[in-house]
C-alpha cells in the first residue's frame, strides 16, 4: 500500500468522525502549548535573572563576612563568630595589585525627611568607588567626592524617586535633608533607573560609609564590592583579598568571596532545573492526551469493526491494519502537536506584548521535544488499539457481532 494512500485513508476516517477528531486535536494542542508556555516562563525567568546579574557590573567580587561552609550539617552553636569586616579591612584590600577598586557597603533603613515630607528608605553607606563599580551615574549634581574612607561627611546622593517624592519639581542640590537624627546636604540625584538585582536604586539614599556607620552606630560593613582589573585577574584578586583578610584576622579565613560568575551559574543551574521541571509537569498533559488517543482509537476500532473485517476479507494482512490505525493516531498527534505549537507561540507572543520587560522565550529544545513527545505518545498509545483492531476475528467482525 502506498504511503499517500495510507495517509489519505486515515484522513478520510478522521474526517468522518469530526467532533471526536477535533476534541482529540484540542487535547493534544493544549498539551503541547502548555509545555511551550511553561518552559518559556522558566526560560524567561532564567534570562531575566541573568540580565539582572550582568547589570551588576563586571569583574566583580562580593566579599561578605563569615565563612559559609559547604560541608553541610548544622552550623556550630558556639564559637565561629566571624570577625566583622571594617573600613580598615576595606582599605587593606586596596593594596592588592589585581584589585582596581573597592567599595564598602553599609546598609540600613532610616527615615529621611525634608520639611514636612518623610520617607522610610534604604540608606546605603559607601564611597565614590561605589558609583563606578555599580556603573551608576547622577542625573544632576555630583557623586560622593573622593576622600579618606574613614572620614564622615554630611553629604548624600538621592535616588531618583526619593528625590521626586521629597522635592517634587524643586531643585534639591544644596538642600539639607534629615536622616534620622542627622542632617546631610544633597549633592546629587541618581539617574532614573529601574530595578537592579531586586534593589530599587530609586528609593535609596547614598552617603559616605563612615557617616552611615555613625548613623547606624556600627563599626562593620555589610558587604565589600571588589572590582578586579580584568576577568583574568579575578582569581588572583580573590586570593589576594582572602590572604589580606587572613593576615588581618589572625590567620582565620572568616570571609566569603562570591564572584558574579559563581552567582550567575548557580542561578542559571537552579532556573534551568526549574524550566525542566515545568516542562515535565506540562508533559503530563501530553501523557493524558496520549491516553485519550488510546481511548478514542479503541472506540474507533469498536465502531469500525465491520470495516476492519472487510479490510481483512479484501486481503489486508495484520500489519497493514496496524499501519492504518497507527497512521490515524500519528496524524492526530502530529496535527495536534502542530496546532499546539501555533497556540504556544501565539500565547508567547501575547505574553511578550503584555509584559515587554520579561523575556518570554520558549527554548528550542522545548519546541522540538514537545512535538516529539506528542508524536511518540500518539504512536505508543495508538499501538494497543491498532493491535486490538488487527486481532479481530474477520468472521465475527463482518457479522457485526
Amino acid at each position, binding site marked *: *500500500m*502506498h504511503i499517500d*494512500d495510507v495517509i489519505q*485513508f486515515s484522513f*478520510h*476516517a478522521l*474526517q*468522518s468522525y469530526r467532533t471526536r477528531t477535533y476534541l482529540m486535536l484540542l487535547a493534544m494542542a493544549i498539551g503541547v502549548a502548555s509545555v511551550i508556555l511553561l518552559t518559556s516562563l522558566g526560560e524567561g525567568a532564567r534570562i531575566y535573572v541573568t540580565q539582572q546579574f550582568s547589570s551588576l557590573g563586571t569583574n566583580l567580587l562580593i566579599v561578605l563576612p563569615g565563612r559559609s561552609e559547604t560541608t553541610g550539617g548544622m552550623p556550630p552553636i558556639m564559637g565561629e563568630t566571624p570577625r566583622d569586616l571594617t573600613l580598615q579591612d576595606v582599605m587593606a584590600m586596596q593594596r592588592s595589585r589585581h584589585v582596581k577598586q573597592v567599595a564598602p557597603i553599609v546598609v540600613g533603613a532610616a527615615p529621611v525627611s525634608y520639611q514636612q515630607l518623610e520617607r522610610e528608605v534604604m540608606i546605603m553607606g559607601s564611597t565614590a568607588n561605589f558609583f563606578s563599580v555599580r556603573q551608576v551615574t547622577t542625573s544632576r549634581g555630583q557623586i560622593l567626592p573622593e576622600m579618606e574612607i574613614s572620614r564622615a561627611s554630611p553629604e548624600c546622593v538621592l535616588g531618583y524617586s526619593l528625590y521626586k517624592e521629597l522635592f517634587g519639581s524643586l531643585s534639591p542640590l544644596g538642600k539639607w535633608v534629615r536622616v534620622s537624627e542627622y542632617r546631610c546636604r544633597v549633592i546629587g540625584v541618581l539617574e532614573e533607573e529601574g530595578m537592579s538585582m531586586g534593589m530599587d536604586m530609586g528609593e535609596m539614599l547614598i552617603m559616605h560609609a563612615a557617616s552611615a556607620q555613625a548613623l547606624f552606630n556600627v563599626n562593620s560593613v555589610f558587604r565589600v564590592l571588589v572590582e578586579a582589573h580584568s576577568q583574568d585577574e579575578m582569581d588572583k584578586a580573590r586570593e589576594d583579598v582572602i590572604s589580606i583578610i587572613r593576615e588581618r584576622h589572625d590567620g582565620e579565613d572568616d570571609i566569603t568571596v562570591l564572584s558574579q560568575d559563581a552567582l550567575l551559574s548557580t542561578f542559571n543551574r537552579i532556573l534551568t532545573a526549574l524550566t525542566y521541571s515545568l516542562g515535565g509537569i506540562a508533559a503530563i498533559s501530553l501523557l493524558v492526551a496520549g491516553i485519550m488517543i488510546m481511548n478514542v482509537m479503541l472506540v474507533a476500532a469498536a465502531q469500525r469493526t*465491520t*470495516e476492519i*473485517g*472487510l*479490510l*481483512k*476479507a*479484501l*486481503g*489486508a*494482512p*495484520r*500489519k*497493514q491494519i496496524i499501519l492504518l490505525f497507527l497512521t490515524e493516531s500519528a496524524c492526530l498527534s502530529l496535527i495536534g502537536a502542530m496546532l499546539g505549537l501555533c497556540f504556544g507561540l501565539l500565547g508567547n507572543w501575547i505574553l511578550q506584548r503584555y509584559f515587554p520587560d520579561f523575556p518570554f522565550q520558549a527554548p528550542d529544545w522545548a519546541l522540538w521535544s514537545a512535538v516529539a513527545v506528542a508524536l511518540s505518545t500518539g504512536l505508543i498509545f495508538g499501538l494497543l488499539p491498532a493491535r486490538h483492531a488487527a486481532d479481530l476475528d*474477520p*468472521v465475527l467482525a*463482518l457479522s*457485526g457481532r
Partner: protein
Amino acid sequence: MIKLEHIARTFKVGDELVHGLDDVSLDINDGEYISIMGPSGSGKSTLLNAIGLLDKIDAGRYFLDGTDVTELSELEQAGVRREKIGFVFQTFHLIPRLTAAENVALPLTLAGVEHEERKQRVNEALQSLNLTDRAHHRPDQLSGGQRQRVAIARAVVTKPVVILADEPTGNLDHASGIDVINILETLNKQGITLLLVTHDIELGERAHRIIHMMDGKVLS
C-alpha cells in the same frame, strides 16, 4: 481448483461443542457455478468463510489451485484472499465515507497498485456494471441494488478466480435480486468460479450444481 479434504470446524457455545463443519470433503472445478443451500445454522456460511480463508479450520486440508493453503502464514493467506478470492456480502459492507469508485478501488489500494492502473481498472469494473454515472456517489446516495453492484465491482476488480457470495440478495427486493444474480451469472460465464450461499430455492436452483447442507455436513 478447490479441493477440501475432511474439513472440520467446531465452535464452543456455552459448554457445548457445535459442529460448524463436520468432515466436509468437496471438489470444485474451475468455472463452476455452485449454490450452497440449507436451513439456518446448517454451516453454509461457515463453509464459505473457510473457503474464503476468513475462518480457521480445525482439521482437514484445503487445496486452492494446488497449494495447501491451510499451511500458509497469516500474511500469505491475506495474499491469497487479495489475489484469488472476491467476496460479496449480504449487507454489502461498503465503507460509508468513501465514494463508489473509492470503495471499488479499495482492494487495489490495499494491494499497492499504482494510481494510473488503479483508476483504469476501477473505471472498467464500474463500466461493466453500469455504475459509471454513480462513481462519485457515496453508498448512502445509492439504492440497495446499486450498492450490491458496487460491492460486486469491488469483488471483481482484482480479477479473482472465485467469487464467494453469501446471501447476496438477502437485503434486496426481488427485481434487484434477480438483477444481481444475473450479473453474477454473467461473470461466471466469463470464467469465474461462483459459489453462492442462499436459502432462496428459486435462485439456488439456477446453479449448475447444488450443495445441500445440514448440521455441518454436506448431504449432496
